[in-house]
């Protein structure tokens, strides 16, 4: 539970900093279209930052498939769980 709170907080911090929106709330149905600046170029920057902060790695096809924040959270949760064993 604590671990989940930590990675969700990290994700929120990354989003807020990268897209210059200090009040941004990460709801599961939030998509790239709803966040100014979340284009395919910044999508890669976002993924790289998440990888660096959480010490995980995404596959190329996983990065391309992501549709909304809910899917991103689920994928991160799975990878963090795999990492921590």
């Amino acid at each position, binding site marked *: 539970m604590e671990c989940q709170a930590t990675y969700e907080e990290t994700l929120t911090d990354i989003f807020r900093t990268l897209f*210059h929106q200090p009040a941004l709330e990460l709801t599961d149905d939030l998509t790239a279209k709803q966040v100014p600046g979340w284009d395919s170029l910044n999508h890669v*920057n976002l993924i790289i930052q998440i990888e660096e902060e959480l010490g995980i790695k995404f596959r*190329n*096809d996983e990065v391309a498939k992501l549709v909304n924040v809910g899917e991103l959270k689920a994928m991160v949760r799975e990878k963090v769980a795999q990492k921590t064993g």
Partner: protein
Amino acid sequence: MGLWAFVAVVHILLYVKLPVPMSSRFAVINLFGIWLFFGPEAAGMLAVLAFGLWAMLWPTARFKQAGRERLASVFGLMSLLFLVGLFVTYKLYFDKVLISGQAQEDHTGSLGFVYGLLRIVSFSYVFLRAVDLIRSVAWGAERLINPIALTGYLGPFHMLIAGPISPYAEHLEIDNLPRPEPTFSHLLNCANTIATGLFFKVVIAQAMKIFLFGVEGAIVSTSWMDTAYLLTYLFFDFAGYSLIALGIGRLLHVPTPLNFDRPYLACSVTEFWQRWHKSLGVFVRNNLFMPLHLFLARRVRRRSLSPFVALVPLVITFIFVAMWHRLTIPFLIWGIAMAIIMVIEKLVRDRFIYVEWFKHKRAQLALRVVGPFYALCVIITSIHYISSEIFTG
């Protein structure tokens, strides 16, 4: 008329319950359709290509199953290089010969089989679908379907003329999703999409062509205005084809992506290419831009360099798109110019976001008014530069 009768028969046949995966059933009927509308040679070559690709990808899939990722990658790369080799050979040799005015029939002799195979590889998005198939099986998480079923993915009859390019992963959904019961509203919806496509293609595009060039006249562009006119003609022609394909795809429940999303309302060149021929955009994003960008971004960590890190994959992607259309120097320059414009737009957009202009209603309104005008001016100017290569009559 024959096409519509065929579509109706396929629609009914696909509802018959059989213990065979839908991808295989659609593929068998599709091969028959290709034979019927494009001739036995086209159907035969499609089958040869599908069996060839399947044979090359089978070891890849087996190695992936066994967890031997490196070997799977090697075999995947070999398949990809072989396919690209076929495509480039066609573009450099046969396509060039055709451009220089030699008749197609010149290659029906001893080179007939090679020409036929190369032509099906380069023909109307089959190549791009094959690339997506290789990437999905070798480096993605998708399974390899049987060679017969592959023919249904590589050359679906309704998407053969003018795309769109359906991703392999989406095509596999045909086996997973339950087939919905036919309803009148669904039929009406499909008929509406097909009718809109026919109106675009047969009425508007044809009227525009006849108005400017006559019934038998060659399509040529000599001025900036001609190019603007021809771009609009191209939109109705291409979007018309794509809507017909979309309507048929929805009717048969065969995954068929939307190809045009009101491109003339785009506020930037970047947005224009996200709305024009969307399925090609998705293809290059998933298969080229994203993997290259990720590869570079993981190696160059400095945030201040990120626009330059993005420039390289963007240039390569647009060079690929340009070269896919035609292997010529003007197309190469066009591709590089488009990529540079998009990076400049990205820098401006980021600045716009940084100073929070997007929150001001006046700024948003100004962008909506000036944006489409700017985007169209740039697009028309750039297309005019390569118009002699596109509009060759």
